[in-house]
């Protein structure tokens, strides 16, 4: 279940608690269809038949879940183990799917959350020790990393709601304080990145010494792709965890080995593609690198627009649509702070106008109502921030699950307020090619000293610092001051002649081919 982190608010809402669930569920009963499922999956894994594994994993598992396990978990791993030679690794994989299904459809108990953590430790343990020789579909490997981070985030949210915890739950939390500990989570992801040597592999690939991206991460020489691809996706996992913590600088650093301007293995799974760009763009937004954020959101929104229809039947369709909407909201924020509409494709722009046109017009006013819209869009589209530290169990039990989100929101709105006078400046700079400070101060109803500070603010806020600490400009309109005259320079979009020539060459060739095929009588 890809990017399932929107489920966490659902705890206990209209979903069945395991304790009250259908009495008919017997964890030890293995119906024939489950037996057949595990036997086949096990066989395909041993045969390294990635295509069939993918079919079983992507289609059969969801089909069976929809049909037979809508409201109960799958049979327990102990019950199915003897159908698969008690294979240790297969059992770990089965349990990982078992928990994933439980988290998606039911409400996990605290004990189950802890057990799932233990299962991840064992699973990543065997992968890190290099004893796994399987070839698994990218989709499955991505889902593992994605689910691992989701369950961590869900655990932090769960733990932060201290008010309604029973004494038993609090005792368990104290007893298993290593479960979903933030150091543990980060160290597993980091260990997968390091042990897989994925960064070196990507470097070697640039020099043509290795094939990774060209093979979509698969290993066609009889080796296993599991560690390598898990390591690769763990970089996206680290990007996401650091965004959840509010550490945007480090988040982008973790992603650096992956070049988002090119297609890479993250492209092969739609969930990973979306998670990568969503978090990358969000981090850029918080770092004030608006142009970078606009470019990447534009690219992926166009991509989703084109391929959406092929995912209609996928279990992830709703999640794709949800992230799509969230990224439009983030794009609306970016363009309100940095009106560079020329960077946005026409298709994306018309979608954006349809969804947020009216709101974006109001956001330009930077009044109380505008701040409320910034607040609304940010809250709707931001990641589900977490407080990673454990609560103190001695103090009175209070909920602190909103603290992290409130801090990020507050700091974001603070930034918006610092930029509130810039839109006024823009309006005037658009209509003048030069204007004296005194005149503009008069129009804006401020004194000259204040106007100078606003102009400095405009210059400062429309520059960002890129990952190499170089100053880059995000300005749509630029100016400079000579003594007390402001001279305005509108940056005109650069005409792309190359494209036009290429298109014309192809067109001409077509015409000439047509001419050739006409036989004159």
């Amino acid at each position, binding site marked *: 279940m890809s990017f399932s982190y929107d489920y966490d608010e659902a705890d206990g809402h209209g979903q069945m608690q395991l304790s009250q669930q259908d009495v008919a569920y017997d964890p030890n009963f293995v119906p024939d269809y489950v037996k057949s499922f595990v036997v086949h999956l096990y066989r395909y894994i041993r045969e390294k038949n990635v295509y069939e594994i993918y079919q079983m994993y992507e289609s059969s598992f969801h089909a069976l879940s929809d049909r037979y396990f809508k409201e109960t978990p799958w049979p327990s791993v102990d019950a199915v183990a003897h159908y698969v030679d008690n294979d240790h690794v297969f059992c770990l994989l089965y349990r990982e799917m078992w928990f994933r299904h439980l988290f998606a459809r039911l409400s996990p108990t605290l004990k189950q959350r802890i057990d799932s953590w233990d299962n991840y430790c064992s699973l990543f*343990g065997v992968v890190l020790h290099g004893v796994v020789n399987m070839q698994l579909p990218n989709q499955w490997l991505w889902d593992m990393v994605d689910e691992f981070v989701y369950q961590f985030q869900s655990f932090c949210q769960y733990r932060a709601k201290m008010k309604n915890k029973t004494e038993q739950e609090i005792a368990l939390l104290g007893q298993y304080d290593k479960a979903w500990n933030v150091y543990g989570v980060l160290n597993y992801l980091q260990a997968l990145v390091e042990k897989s040597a994925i960064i070196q592999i990507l470097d070697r690939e640039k020099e043509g010494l290795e094939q990774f991206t060209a093979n979509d991460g698969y290993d066609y020489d009889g080796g296993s792709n599991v560690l390598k691809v898990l390591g690769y996706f763990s970089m996206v996992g680290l990007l996401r965890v650091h965004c959840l913590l509010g550490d945007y*600088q480090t988040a982008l650093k973790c992603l650096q080995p992956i070049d988002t301007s090119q297609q890479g293995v993250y492209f092969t799974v739609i969930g990973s593609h979306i998670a990568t760009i969503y978090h990358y763009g969000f981090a850029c937004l918080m*770092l004030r690198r608006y142009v970078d954020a606009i470019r990447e959101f534009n690219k992926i929104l166009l991509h989703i627009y084109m391929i959406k229809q092929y995912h209609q039947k996928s279990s992830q369709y709703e999640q794709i649509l949800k992230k799509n909407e969230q990224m439009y909201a983030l794009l609306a924020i970016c363009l309100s702070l940095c009106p560079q509409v020329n960077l946005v494709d026409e298709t994306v722009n018309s979608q954006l106008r349809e969804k947020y046109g009216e709101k974006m017009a109001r956001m330009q006013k930077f009044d109380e109502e505008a701040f409320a819209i910034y607040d609304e869009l940010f809250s709707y589209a931001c990641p589900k921030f977490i407080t990673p530290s454990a609560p103190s169990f001695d103090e009175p039990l209070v909920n602190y699950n909103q603290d992290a989100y409130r801090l990020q929101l507050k*700091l974001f709105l603070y930034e918006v307020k610092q930029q509130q006078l810039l839109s006024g400046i823009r309006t005037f700079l658009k209509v003048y090619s030069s204007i004296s400070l005194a005149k503009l101060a008069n129009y804006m109803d401020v004194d000259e000293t204040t106007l*100078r500070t606003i102009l*400095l*603010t405009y210059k400062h806020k429309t520059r*960002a610092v890129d990952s190499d600490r170089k100053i880059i400009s995000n300005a749509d309109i630029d100016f400079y001051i000579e003594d007390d005259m402001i001279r305005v320079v509108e940056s005109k979009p650069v005409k792309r002649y190359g494209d036009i020539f290429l298109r014309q060459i*192809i067109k001409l060739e077509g015409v000439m081919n047509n001419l050739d095929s006409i036989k004159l009588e």
Partner: protein
Amino acid sequence: MEREMQKQQQEESSYTVEQLVTFNPYNPDILPDLENYVNEQVSSQTYSLDANLCLLRHYQFEPDRMSIQIVSHILIKALMAMPAPDFSLCLFLIPEKVQMEEPFKTLIVLSHYLETGRFCQFWDEVAKSRRLLEAVPGFEQAIQAYAGHVLSLTYQKVPRAVLAEAINIEGPSLDKFIEHQAVNSGWALGKGQLIVIPKNEFNHPELKKSGGDIVPLEHIARIFPILG
């Protein structure tokens, strides 16, 4: 993995802090090294954002170990790194209730003035918080460099009074500052009370290098069959 971590701990003494931040960032035992490193950055007038963010993350994971003094030094260092957004990057990691306390309230006000180009108010506020800021050598010079930077983005010719206010220097000291800038950044004295700042791509946007018309190879490749 635990065994690996222990091994790394034993070898720790032979690593520099920068190496620890790169290769072993998620280990609670490096916290004291990171704290010492902040003090070292203060005394040697150096700076490492990545190491400081790493330390703030550790404080976020274990709030009981947080040192107010260290955090305030990190934030002052971040102000000195303007125009980079380091100050906000640090604030994102510091719990809201800590931010409501002094000295953080003052530092946040200072950052606000710098972010919105209000140097006059900024220096007034600095005068009231001497003791806090004097603990970090090089503070004033770093802010003056930032002020010089923003002015050079904005002005081709800046009135002397505007410069004086932004960097909080007057009279002979100001002459000295301008002389220094003349040698290092090509500033010059213009007519009247104007100082001429050399053109750069931001105060003279025509200079902006247009990316040129670059056509990627794969686009050209599409017409290879025709060209052949």
